[in-house]
């Protein structure tokens, strides 16, 4: 048995029919967090609601991880039912190890063909020997031992997570973990994790939860919800959280209602938000236009999935960029922002609330399934000062004008209950007082102000995360930022360099900031997860790019791997 160590280890747990691999994966993640490591877990499953085949893809590392890597060190299968369907998602090689229950069925050919080493662990039989024992806990114990996580971290997680099920359940699980840990000694080895940095306070959180927390931190107190994969968990987290802070979430009858409900909530002075995914966003577009025209702040979080139509609901894609940027009818200036990492879902959503409220417009937050539904161990995100701060008139006189033309373009907005501030918010073009008007003068004046308030606003450095120097720049956004960052780390480790620009503020565009960021850049690689190169075309339309531009655009459902980016940079054509 070797004692090879690594700064990063990647494991897949698979199983079907209530095998509990997701629970085991999540506990493995938490145990890694307690032991001072960082981690990332992505879930994949078959189409069944219950009992289907599932895979928990876990990466644990000594440093923060925002992406999976190119290969997996180990696949641990409680059974082999349909595991072949995940083959493309879990690349392995001869150094990898696949372990299965001898009674877990036939190993899929496509997995065997990777050349991975093979071993057996009679996990079911061993679990059966323990009263109340379950194979997934046995797997947890075995994997934790194999990668070198301390027993105590695992035990603590079990005690914490299973306490509500009673002491017997805790004891049975701990017994299974111990049995698994003991059995691990007899199994072939995989790299163990290098020693961890301890101390810092770690969170275990999904991007969807982070977006929800960002919303509440920003001041959101009213949310209307209609369930849709993969946006639902933002709403599910918010429902009880809002209750605790004196807000409310209402489950609406459809997305047409949820988006309009939040316009009503916001009109009443309460910062309001909804979350959805592509098909829901498409339904919401008309009312997002209403928010823009009536200057009623709202935030819509779109957790993108594979499209078009129902597409691939459980897989990530960055293909809602076009609809988010261009999908409103008429000239409708609005905000589009995108988190640059799982943890950044918190900051970006909070910032979006602040911006929408300050600028009295609609903000679309383009998260994606890979950010939203992945769970990660991260450092506690820093507190930021961005709060909902709407400009409300101190007092309103006789000649009050709700849509007054101001230098900034922002007009003070009274809220119902404020005497003398009575006005009718309108989606019809209007005069400064809000009376419907089809005059060219009113139309120009109102359109100018609605645009000006967005373009003249100072977004500071938050428009993008910029890292590094060099004549080569990589432009990306959203969840593809993760593999691109990792690729860049490798390039730098090999003595190369490139500049990485992860754009957070997609609308309004920032031509001056962009030009400054590209100062000295000779060539640009654009990386995105869409079939038609939506991000590339967006950049082409709005920004000056150097002559030498390469595009790496790939649709879902498979994630972009760091090696693909490294390869692109190495083989510039």
């Amino acid at each position: 048995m070797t004692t090879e160590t690594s700064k990063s280890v990647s494991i897949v747990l698979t199983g079907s029919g209530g095998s509990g691999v997701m629970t085991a994966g999540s506990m493995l993640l938490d145990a890694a967090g307690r032991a001072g490591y960082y981690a990332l877990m992505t879930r994949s499953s078959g189409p069944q609601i219950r009992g289907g085949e599932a895979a928990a893809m876990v990466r644990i590392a000594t440093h923060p991880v925002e992406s999976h890597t190119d290969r997996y060190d180990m696949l641990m299968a409680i059974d082999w039912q349909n595991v072949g369907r995940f083959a493309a998602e879990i690349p392995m090689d001869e150094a990898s190890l696949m372990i299965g229950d001898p009674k877990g069925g036939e190993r899929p050919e496509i997995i065997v063909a990777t050349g991975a080493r093979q071993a057996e662990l009679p996990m079911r039989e061993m679990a059966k020997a323990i009263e109340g024992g379950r194979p997934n806990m046995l797997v947890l114990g075995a994997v934790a031992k194999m990668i070198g996580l301390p027993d105590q971290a695992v035990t603590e997680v079990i005690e914490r997570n299973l306490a509500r099920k009673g002491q017997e359940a805790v004891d049975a699980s701990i017994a299974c973990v111990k049995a698994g840990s003991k059995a691990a000694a007899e199994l072939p080895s995989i790299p163990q994790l290098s020693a961890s940095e301890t101390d810092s306070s770690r969170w275990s959180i999904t991007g969807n939860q982070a977006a929800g927390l960002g919303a509440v931190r920003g001041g959101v107190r009213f949310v209307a919800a209609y369930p849709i994969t993969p946006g639902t968990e933002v709403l599910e987290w918010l429902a009880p959280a809002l209750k605790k802070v004196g807000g409310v979430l209402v489950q609406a009858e459809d997305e047409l209602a949820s988006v309009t409900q939040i316009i009503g909530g916001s009109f009443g002075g309460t910062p309001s938000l909804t979350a959805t995914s592509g098909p829901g966003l498409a339904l919401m577009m008309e009312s997002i236009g209403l928010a823009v025209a009536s200057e009623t702040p709202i935030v819509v979080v779109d957790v993108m999935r594979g499209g078009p139509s129902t597409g691939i609901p459980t897989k990530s894609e960055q293909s809602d960029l076009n609809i988010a940027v261009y999908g409103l009818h008429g000239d409708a200036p609005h905000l589009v922002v995108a988190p640059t990492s799982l943890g950044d879902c918190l900051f970006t959503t909070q910032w979006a609330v602040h911006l929408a409220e300050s600028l009295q417009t609609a903000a679309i937050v383009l998260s994606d399934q890979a950010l939203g539904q992945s769970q990660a161990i991260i450092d506690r995100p820093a507190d930021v000062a961005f709060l909902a701060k709407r400009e409300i008139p101190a007092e309103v006189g006789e000649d009050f004008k709700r849509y007054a033309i101001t230098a900034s373009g922002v007009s003070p907005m009274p809220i119902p209950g404020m005497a003398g501030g009575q006005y009718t918010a309108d989606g019809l073009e209007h005069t400064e007082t809000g009376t419907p008007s089809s005059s060219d003068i009113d139309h120009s004046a109102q359109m100018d102000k609605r645009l000006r308030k967005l373009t003249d606003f100072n977004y500071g450095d938050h428009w993008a995360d910029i890292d590094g120097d060099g004549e080569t720049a990589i432009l990306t956004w959203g969840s593809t930022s993760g593999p691109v960052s990792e690729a860049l780390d490798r390039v730098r480790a090999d003595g190369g360099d490139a500049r990485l620009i992860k754009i957070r503020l997609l609308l309004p565009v920032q031509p001056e900031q962009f030009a400054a960021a590209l100062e000295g850049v000779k060539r640009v690689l654009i990386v995105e997860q869409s079939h038609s190169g939506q991000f590339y075309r967006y950049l082409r339309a709005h920004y000056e790019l150097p002559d030498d531009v390469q595009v790496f655009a790939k649709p879902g459902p498979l994630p972009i791997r760091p090696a693909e980016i490294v390869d692109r940079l190495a083989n510039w054509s």
Partner: protein
Amino acid sequence: MDTNTASKPLTAKDFKSNVKPVWCPGCGDFGVLSSLTKVFAELKLIPENVAVISGIGCSSRIPAYVNSYGFHGVHGRALPLAIGLKVSRPDLSVIVTGGDGDGFSIGGNHFLHACRRNVDMTYIVMDNQVYGMTKGQASPTTEATWAKGKLTPGGPGINPFNPLVIALASGANYIARCSSGDPNGTAKVLAEAIAHPGFSFVQIMSPCVTYRPEQREWKKTARPSPVEATDDPARAARRLMSDDGLNTGPLYIGSRAPYQPELKASIENLAELEQEFVV
């Protein structure tokens, strides 16, 4: 209603804004506007604590003509907008107004669910059985044989929708029909509807003098229902089975508790929300 009571009595005129209606002279909606402003004065509401919410259509122009907060939104979505407002601001008096196309066609699903949700608000539909803003097409309440709709030559050929039946089946807590030709009778019903807790639905037969001039007859043919309002949905349903659409007055007055989540914080510090994430 108590908290929204004015100290100095306001008149109906005080509830009219200085925006002049664009409706055709003769339109039934003038009568409804008159009834509504009278009711606001009678109930001693305060303009800034009232919100009138609408979608798109002739009658949906009402918010701008009323001295209160208002929202003239998109077609068919007045009810969800009002629900979002009322749930987050239960202190306001919320009135939703609109027409038959806005409420029963493009907004049909919201109508069902607003009745079911039973938020404390009053929904007034000015029903003229036609789309006026788009030049006279048949609406969900148009009779099957009305042949003048340009999109339905020879008549829609499908039976009209009975909004009172749907409201009752979906759970509205107060259901009535009025005629705009009887503004004071309408005002009396509206006063009761607004004061009644939960979702009140009031259909007002409001003639379109431009596309349906024959509806001027409603003033003569509409009559107060010979039967009192009931709190029994089964009785109300039986009455609707023999209803010819011309009976006015309240039909059903229920006692379901309105939907209104409590808006009271149980934690003092937002940081408490983070605890679940700490490993």
